[in-house]
């Protein structure tokens, strides 16, 4: 089929896809908030009735009108989005009850956090405790953002209740410090080097690309276990934008992908940084994988790939849960965490990578589909611009 015939069809399909994503967003948004009383009762079971003191704070009273304690509902940024909790304090300022109201973390990781004893580990803390990860609270490897959100919830609510309801002296608020360390610096460097390497042909180009990929594999994959995932893109679409000071890494990851795609139509992330792409290429080198395309097969499969990713995005938007449709196998490879299905999928991808170059990227990866859409919209926009001029 000629380009002249496929272009209008592709444009219609792209518009349809984006329109349905917007509809899905509104559908998810219209689902009303849960009744909070059961959560208050779970957080402070000693109380028989609750008196609303403000929008998010209740006093719990026993049947003989004694004050059992206070409950406050708050939310903090987890990995997938806001993690909402009800935190109960007794009148001495000690945390006596915690319950999770709503969370949008990846199911495997929230399960890991719960099995490791959170948020129970925060019980018994008092208003005067620092409640800082790495100081008086231990983190959980691979689930830092989730635990951090729980700790921040408890810290904020306990200090607010302590100060405003109990008249206790509370430590000064923990300032939002800018998290800018070696991961962020490394990411910026990798994007710049990757972009320049793609743009300018020079003798050591292939060698530098391999170096960048291996660095991505080791550092972004195994050390940090923070590659770009569909969950983060869903998060942005849902409006759950995390505080940039604390999660600058994610903004750099997505921003770098978008920036170089928009200004120069080059997908630096997938080509030179993605740790799973690097893993596939390493296996491909061992097995002698070839890059080959049967145009008809490739075109049909491309659309099947896009439909799969579209379905995942729409599911996440309707359920307002960024990680619910996360199907990447990165956790299985880099952290040995994942469901049985994901491990089987990982095995399939790696075995196929022996004979076929980057099969995950070409036929299953949500980031590739997203990049294709950006590329398509950019090309369309440029055509319109040229026509207007």
């Amino acid at each position, binding site marked *: 089929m000629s380009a002249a015939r496929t272009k209008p069809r592709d444009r219609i399909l792209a518009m349809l896809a984006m329109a349905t994503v917007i509809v899905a967003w509104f559908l998810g948004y219209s689902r009303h908030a849960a009744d909070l009383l059961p959560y208050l009762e779970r957080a402070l079971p000693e109380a028989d009735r609750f008196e609303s003191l403000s929008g998010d704070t209740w006093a719990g009273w026993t049947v003989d009108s004694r004050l059992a304690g206070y409950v406050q509902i708050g939310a903090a940024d987890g990995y997938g989005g806001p993690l909402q909790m009800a935190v109960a304090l007794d009148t001495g300022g000690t945390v006596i009850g915690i319950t999770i109201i709503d969370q949008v973390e990846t199911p495997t990781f929230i399960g890991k956090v719960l099995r490791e004893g959170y948020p129970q580990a925060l019980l018994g803390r008092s208003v005067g405790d620092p409640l800082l990860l790495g100081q008086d609270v231990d983190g959980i490897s691979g689930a830092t953002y989730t635990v951090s959100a729980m700790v921040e919830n408890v810290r904020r609510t306990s200090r607010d209740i302590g100060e405003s309801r109990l008249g206790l002296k509370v430590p000064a608020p923990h300032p939002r410090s800018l998290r800018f360390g070696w991961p962020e610096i490394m990411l910026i460097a990798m994007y710049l080097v990757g972009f320049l390497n793609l743009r300018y042909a020079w003798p050591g180009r292939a060698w530098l690309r391999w170096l960048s990929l291996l660095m991505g594999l080791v550092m972004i994959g195994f050390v940090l276990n923070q590659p770009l995932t569909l969950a983060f893109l869903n998060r942005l679409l849902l409006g759950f934008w995390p505080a940039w000071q604390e999660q600058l890494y994610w903004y750099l990851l997505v921003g770098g992908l978008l920036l170089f795609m928009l200004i120069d139509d080059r997908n630096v992330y997938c080509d030179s940084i993605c740790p799973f792409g690097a893993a596939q290429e390493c*296996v491909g080198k*061992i*097995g*002698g994988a070839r890059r080959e395309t049967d145009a008809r097969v490739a075109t049909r499969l491309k659309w099947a790939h896009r439909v799969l990713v579209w379905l995942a995005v729409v599911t996440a938007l309707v359920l307002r849960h960024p990680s619910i449709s996360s199907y990447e196998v990165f956790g299985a490879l880099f952290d040995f965490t994942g469901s049985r299905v994901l*491990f089987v999928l990982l*095995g399939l991808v*790696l*075995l196929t990578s*022996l004979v076929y170059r980057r099969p995950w990227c070409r036929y299953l990866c949500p980031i590739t589909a997203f990049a294709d859409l950006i590329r398509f919209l950019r090309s369309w926009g440029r055509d319109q611009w040229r026509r207007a001029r």
Partner: protein
Amino acid sequence: MFSSPFFWFLMGVVFVLVAAGARAWATSLGLRMTWWKWLLSAAWYGLLMLTVSMPMTLVGENESSAGMRVLAAMGLVTVILGVGLVRVLVRGRVRSA
């Protein structure tokens, strides 16, 4: 059985046969074997043995779930490295007329 010297004598015979058989097989396939190719082949063979023995030991210790996971993970690694080894061995082989 495993504490019997005769059993281990038989195991030794089996391994010698495997090594001799490997040599004969390499010759019949026209492979140009060098000392480091033999070393790689022996290392891969050792990995294969581990891939079988570790999970089976776990299964024997009533840890079948762990055993299957180790088998899946190590099995995948063994297959991938095995393919790589075949490519290395086959490179520059003398094809029979």
